[in-house]
C-alpha cells in the first residue's frame, strides 16, 4: 500500500459535490453534511462555550449556582398526523426531551407557528389540543408564542418551532463529553419505531406495519434514573440520524470508542422487516420517545431496574460499552462475532435500488 498523499491541487473531481454552495435535503439529515454545516456556517460567527459544548440543550449559569438549560427545535413533518402522534405532540416532546437530556427539569415552553394560507382551523385546533395534552403529561407550561401566516404554497400546512427552558440541580453534569471507558450504554426501548411509522403514514412503504410512533416526553423517566444514581454520564435522544448518529457524536465528544453488541439491540419485527425491504439500517432511523444513556457500570443494574419500572423505560436494555479505543469511533460486534464500523451517514438515507 502506498503512503503517498494525493495532491489536492490536481484536478480531482469536476463536481462541487460537497454541496457547500446550496442547501440540499442532506443538510437536515442529522448526518455528516449537517455536522459540517453547523461547524462551518453556524459555529464561527456565533461561538460561545454553551453552544460549542454541542449538547441537545445549552447550559448557562445565570447567578451563583443557578443554571438554566435552554433548547429549541423546529418541527416540519409530513403528514401532520400519523399513528401515535402529530406535529403538536412532537413539538412539545422534542423540546422537553432536549432540555431533559442535559439532566435539567423542563419548566416552560414557547411556541411559534408558521401557518400556510388555507389551512383548516379545525386542524390547528386539533394540533394545539395535542400540544396541551403533551405539556400536561410532561408537567410544563407553554407561556408565550407567535403566529405568522405565509401565502398558499410557501409552507406545507403548518410548521411549529418550540423553545424550552429548564432548571439544573447544582452539581449535575451530564453531557456528550462525559462518557468514560468502562461505562455501559443503555437504550430505553426499541429503535426505529417513529421513522418507520411516519414513512408508512406518508404512503412510502407500500405495505402495512401497524407501527405507532414512539413519541413521548422522557423527563419523568430521566428524573427516575437520576433519583437512583449520580453516575448517569451522558443522555441523548436519538432523533434524526438515529442511534448511530447520536452514539457517533458521543464517541467524538468524549474521544472514546463505543462498541455495540448487534444481538442485544432491540428492534421490533415490523421495523426490521421494513428496513429489510427498503435497504435501511434501524440504527439510523429516527426515534422520538427513546433515550440513550451512558452510565457508570457499577450503577448500570440499578439504573436499568428503575427504568424498567418507569413508563417509557419498560424495555430498557444494555446494548454496548465504552472503551478507550478507537477514540471517536462507533463499532458494532456482529452476530457472527466480527466487528465493523458504524459511521455517520453522509446525508439522507436513500432507499436501495434492489
Amino acid at each position: 500500500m502506498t503512503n503517498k498523499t494525493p495532491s489536492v491541487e490536481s484536478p480531482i473531481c469536476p463536481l462541487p459535490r460537497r454541496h457547500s454552495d446550496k442547501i440540499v435535503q442532506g443538510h437536515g439529515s442529522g448526518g455528516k453534511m449537517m455536522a459540517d454545516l453547523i461547524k462551518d456556517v453556524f459555529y464561527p460567527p456565533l461561538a460561545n462555550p454553551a453552544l460549542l459544548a454541542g449538547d441537545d440543550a445549552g447550559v448557562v449559569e445565570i447567578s451563583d449556582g443557578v443554571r438554566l438549560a435552554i433548547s429549541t427545535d423546529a418541527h416540519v413533518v409530513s403528514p401532520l398526523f400519523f399513528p401515535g402522534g402529530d406535529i403538536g405532540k412532537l413539538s412539545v416532546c422534542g423540546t422537553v426531551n432536549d432540555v431533559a437530556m442535559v439532566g435539567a427539569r423542563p419548566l416552560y415552553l414557547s411556541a411559534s407557528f408558521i401557518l400556510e394560507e388555507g389551512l383548516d382551523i379545525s386542524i390547528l385546533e386539533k394540533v394545539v389540543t395535542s400540544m396541551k395534552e403533551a405539556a400536561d403529561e410532561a408537567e410544563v407550561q407553554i407561556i408565550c408564542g407567535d403566529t405568522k401566516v405565509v401565502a398558499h404554497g410557501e409552507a406545507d400546512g403548518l410548521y411549529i418551532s418550540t423553545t424550552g427552558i429548564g432548571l439544573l440541580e447544582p452539581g449535575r453534569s451530564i453531557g456528550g463529553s462525559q462518557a468514560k471507558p468502562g461505562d455501559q450504554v443503555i437504550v430505553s426501548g426499541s429503535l426505529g419505531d417513529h421513522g418507520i411509522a411516519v414513512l408508512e403514514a406518508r404512503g412510502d412503504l407500500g405495505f402495512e406495519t401497524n407501527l405507532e410512533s414512539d413519541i413521548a416526553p422522557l423527563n419523568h423517566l430521566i428524573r427516575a434514573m437520576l433519583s437512583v444514581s449520580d453516575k448517569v454520564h451522558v443522555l441523548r435522544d436519538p432523533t434524526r440520524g438515529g442511534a448511530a448518529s447520536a452514539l457517533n457524536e458521543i464517541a467524538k465528544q468524549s474521544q472514546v470508542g463505543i462498541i455495540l453488541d448487534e444481538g442485544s439491540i432491540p428492534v421490533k419485527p415490523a421495523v426490521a422487516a421494513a428496513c429489510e425491504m427498503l435497504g435501511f439500517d434501524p440504527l439510523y432511523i429516527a426515534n422520538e420517545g427513546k433515550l440513550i444513556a451512558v452510565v457508570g457500570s457499577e450503577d448500570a443494574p440499578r439504573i436499568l431496574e428503575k427504568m424498567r419500572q418507569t413508563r417509557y423505560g419498560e424495555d430498557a436494555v444494555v446494548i454496548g460499552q465504552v472503551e478507550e479505543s478507537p477514540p471517536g469511533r462507533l463499532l458494532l460486534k456482529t452476530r457472527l462475532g466480527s466487528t465493523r464500523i458504524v459511521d455517520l451517514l453522509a446525508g439522507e438515507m436513500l432507499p436501495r435500488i434492489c
Partner: protein
Amino acid sequence: MKYLTEYRDADLVHGLINKIKEITTQHWTLMEICGGQTHSIIKNGLDQLLPDQIELVHGPGCPVCVTPLELIDKALAIASKPDVIFTSYGDMLRVPGSQADLFSVRARGGDIRVVYSPLDAVKLAQENPDKEVVFFAIGFETTAPANVMSVLQADQLGLDNFSILVSHVRVPQAIEAILSSPHNRVQGFLAAGHVCAVMGYWEYIPLAKKYNIPMTITGFEPLDIAQGILTTVESLEAGTCEVKNAYIRAVSKKGNQSAQAVINKVFEECDRKWRGIGLIPGSGWRLRPLYTKYDAEKRFQVETIQAEESPLCISGLVLQGQKKPDQCEAFGTLCTPENPLGATMVSDEGACAAYYRYRTQTPDSREKGL
C-alpha cells in the same frame, strides 16, 4: 422476518466457515458479482472470518456504480427541464455527473422524486397529464421486469407523457469481459442470486466451460454466502469447473420464463458503456423500435451528451476486481461518501462505500492509507 433469521444463524455460519478452513489447501481468489453480496459480506464481517487463503474481490454488480457518467449527465439535463417530473430509485440521486448530481438539480427547483417502483412513476404520469414523467431505468436483470412492465402499462393506458431513460446492463457479458482480460485474477465466481432468479443460470454453463472456472449461484444472507464460498472452494480444490446452485430456494436453471418473455418483448440487446470499465459488447438492453416513443433520450434529444471520468478514481479497477477500495490513493481522504469521486463510493452497494462504512479502521490508519 421469518425465513431470514434462519439464514443469519451464527452457529451454522461458523460451521460452514470451519468446513471452508478444513478443505482449503492453497490461495484462491473468488469474486462475488453482486453489490448486494459485497454489502452483506462487509456488513456482517464475513471476510474477517474466512481463512487468509480465501481472497474475495468485489465485482461490478452494483447498478448505480456502473451507470456511465454521460447517462447521469443526460438524466441531469432531462430533470432540469421545467415541465418534467424526474423519478428515480433513491440511491441514484447522489451519483455525480460531470457538473452536478440530481440533489443539486432538485435544490435548483427540479422536480425530482424518489419512487420505489417504476409503476409508481406510471401512476404519477396518469395523475399529472400536463407534465412529462421520466423514470431512470437502470439496473441489471433484476430490475428489468418491473422496468419493462412500466412501459407496457403506459402503452396499455395510452399515456403519451411517460418515458424511461434506459441504462440496463447484464451480468454474463460482464463476467466474460473480466475473464477475457489479460489481468484477470479471479478463479471462481459467486454468481448473483437475484439476477439468476429472473434469468436462470443456463447462460453461465458455457462460460464456465470456456474459461474453465467454477461458478456458484449464491444468495445474500451470511449463510447463503458462506455456502456459496464453500461450494466454489470445493470445486476449485477438486479441479472442476461446473455451475452449481447454492440458492435453490429462489433460483432454477431456466429462471422466471414469463419475466424473460416480457423483457424480450420490450428490450433488445445492445452494446453498453460501464462506468469505470468501458464499452462491453452486447452487455446492455435498450428499448425495441416498437417502444422507442417511450425512450427519454430521444424524446428530450439528449443522445449527443458525452462525458469523461475523473482520472484519480480507480473504480473501474475496483469493479473488475483488480484493486481493493482501500488500495486507492483517494480512499477515505479525497473520496468519501459525502464527496465521492466515483460511483463505487456513492451507492450503498458500491464496494468503496461498503469499505468506508464497515471496515474497522481507525481514522489514523485511514489517513496513513494503511
